[in-house]
């Protein structure tokens, strides 16, 4: 029983991590394409951009709903405290997601597309900004009392580091959005996004370097963990691998490859994610509450694990199927070959 009360929260921490990673990658390119749509030079291009998302944006966004539900059920205390503390960035994200979601349909029927174009682009940007600020705010730590309830102020999350995190996340979304568009488009449009991908690769790299430097300087608890033996060797590996991956990404962009840039970007996301997870673990409300303290009762975790656990592979399967059905380039405003 004793081991179970350690193992179960760990299992759920990993499941939440999987949901969050899938969300950040999938809705990441979704939001990234949305942000890039601001720069689209004409309506035809914007139509292609939106068509490339038409069939999958809803499923991508649903990973966020999954993560919310899983967090609520598995770590109710963390769900309550984090959302309470991050009220403003969360509302910012929600407003952004509303605008971009309705823009898909409203734009199609509208004669004045400009308004919904702005709603789509700005909504995507707002959602990404809210997510980045929330992520930064969580990593930085949340003021709680000994029961784990939020006792800080409404602007606690706002700091140099959280803004840096948000800007880097937006760059990352633009990067993965660009590489997705390289995959899904051709001709001039594809060429444009080789360009945006290269710019975003550099800006993401700069952000990542700054975060890597800032983390041990600003976060005392992280510093102790980062430089403790023997973890320091694992942690040291992450920036090295990161630079290597960015190098591979830029090489594949320079060689005008179509599929590999997207794959390298996904690996960069995965790597950053593992890094963040290792810094956060075992805290779910940094820097006070561990996953063991915030977890629901073991029986709840088992109950949820039975139902949700079985469904994870099934969900992944039919999501992949949907991508297979809609594989190929988006031509004009339809799926070509």
């Amino acid at each position, binding site marked *: 029983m004793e081991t179970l009360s350690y193992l179960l929260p760990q299992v759920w921490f990993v499941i939440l991590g999987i949901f969050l990673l899938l969300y950040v990658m999938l809705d990441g390119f979704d939001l990234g394409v949305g942000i890039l749509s601001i720069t689209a030079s004409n309506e035809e291009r914007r139509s292609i951009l939106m068509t490339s998302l038409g*069939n999958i944006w809803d*499923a991508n966004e649903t990973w966020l709903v999954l993560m919310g539900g899983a967090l*609520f*059920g598995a770590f109710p205390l963390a769900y309550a405290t984090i959302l*309470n503390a991050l009220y403003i960035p969360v509302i910012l994200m*929600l407003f952004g997601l509303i605008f971009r979601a309705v823009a898909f*349909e409203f734009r199609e029927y509208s004669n004045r597309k400009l308004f919904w174009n702005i709603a789509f682009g700005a909504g995507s940007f707002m959602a990404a900004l809210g997510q980045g600020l929330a992520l930064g705010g969580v990593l930085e730590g949340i003021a709680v009392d000994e029961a784990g309830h939020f006792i800080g102020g409404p602007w606690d999350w706002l700091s140099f580091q959280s803004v840096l995190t948000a800007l880097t996340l937006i760059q990352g979304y633009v990067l993965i959005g660009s590489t997705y568009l390289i995959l899904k488009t051709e001709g001039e449009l594809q060429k444009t996004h080789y360009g945006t991908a290269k710019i975003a690769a550099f800006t993401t790299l700069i952000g990542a370097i700054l975060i890597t430097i800032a983390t041990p300087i600003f976060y005392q608890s992280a510093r102790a963990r980062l430089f403790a033996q023997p973890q320091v060797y694992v942690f040291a590996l992450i920036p090295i691998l990161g630079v290597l991956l960015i190098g591979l990404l830029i090489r594949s962009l320079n060689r005008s490859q179509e599929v590999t840039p997207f794959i390298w970007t996904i690996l960069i996301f995965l790597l950053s994610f593992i890094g963040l997870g290792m810094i956060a673990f075992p805290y779910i409300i940094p820097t006070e509450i561990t996953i063991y303290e915030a977890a629901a*009762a073991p029986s709840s975790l088992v109950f949820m694990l039975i139902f949700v656990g079985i469904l994870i592979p099934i969900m992944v399967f039919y999501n992949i199927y949907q991508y297979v059905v809609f594989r*190929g380039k988006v031509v004009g*405003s339809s799926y070509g070959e």
Partner: protein
Amino acid sequence: MDSILNVVVLSRMQFALTAIFHILWPILTTGMAIYLVVVEGLWLKTRNVDYYRHARFWSKLYVLNFSIGVATGIPMEFQFGSNWAPLSESIGDFFGSILGFEATMAFMLEAGFLGIMLFGWERVHPVIHYLATIMVAFGANLSTFWILTANSWMQTPAGGQFVDGKFVVIDYFQAIQSPFMVTSFFHMFFATLETSMFVIGGISAWYILSDRHSAFFAKSLKIVLAGAIAITPLQIYVGDESAKQVYHYQPTKLAAMEAQWETIPAGESADWSIVAWPNGRAEKNDWDIKAPNGLSYLLEFKPTLSEPVQGLKEWPPENRPRMVSLIYYSFRIMSGIGFFFAGLMLWSVLQWLRGKLSSDTIAQQRWLMRGWILAAPLGYIAVEAGWIVRCVGRQPWAVYGEIRTVDAASNLPIGSVLTSLLGFSAIYTLLFVSALYFGSRIIRQGPNLELEPPGLDRPPALETSPAEHTPDQRPLEAQQ
């Protein structure tokens, strides 16, 4: 205390606003998804191309509603944590798991197959496409099931106990099968079907009355009429069962629904008030009109009661719902609409049996068609009224008898909640106006009766042509 109270009020207003607005969209799409399964099935079976065109036409309205439903649904999930943190922490072990189930079992299923259902006509075999449509409908209705499971548990908590204000689950299946769950699920399931059937029927009637594609829309009207024959009486039955459960499990709510201030002891007959003017301050109705023995018949189907009907004055004011008039009239509006639907169904069936609904004579049934047009928005009103009875009537409890709403709210700064509330109000107003505008545009534009279905026999190959349907082709159709 005062500032906390205001934040509670603001958070309640925000939850009410976002819930009332959000539900408008899924009640149509969950019911309409079943209609889409029916017409696509009819197409596959009869190969009558009209059914295929029905599927394509109605799915335009479907996706418009669906996207707003998704957009406004996400704030619902996150608000539990942001505005109701103490509640979430206290009941998360059970309630959170149920929302997690809804996301994994229902939402993802719906979202995962929606793309194929909307854009995959030329990309997958029709049978695979049909499976996708079924999965979307199944996912949507499964989501009704889990949401009603979660809400029913808040009405009649079961399956565990509260220890130091935190709910400890003892038996999950018992908690899922809380006393209200089965009837509440069916009540809502039928409500989504009724709403969408009368919306589809009302729009069809509008076309018939305007003499546009009468034969085409006579088909959809008859399909939803066939559904209404089964659903409208069943809904009245389930609604009655629900009220009886409220009588047993939530006496404060029943007293508010009936604006009953004084207790009616067992053995006496209870009148049912038809119209009343409840006066909360004086704790009585200023005036009312009553049907003799009505309530006794409604609750136990006999002239005298075997159990007492407790009046509101049995409880101190802080333990009973306020806004009695709202609950009282919402209940009557909801029930009245339920009976109107049944009456409209009977009238339509009568005309159908007399052979007056054939495609060449249906346009002459002008008053009947007007009745259906009138019915189109009523389902929404009934659902909203019903949820007002259910959730305002549950007050002052968030979890009935266990957690008070005032103790459930996060201690947020007033400025934050006020800003978000104003933001939601503005955005939702914009969405509502836009949805009506674009929805009526789709309706005015009408179905595309030239649309040819993908071949049933050949596998629709990816090599032949680019996918015919994409969202961007719709404005082109608008120019026709």
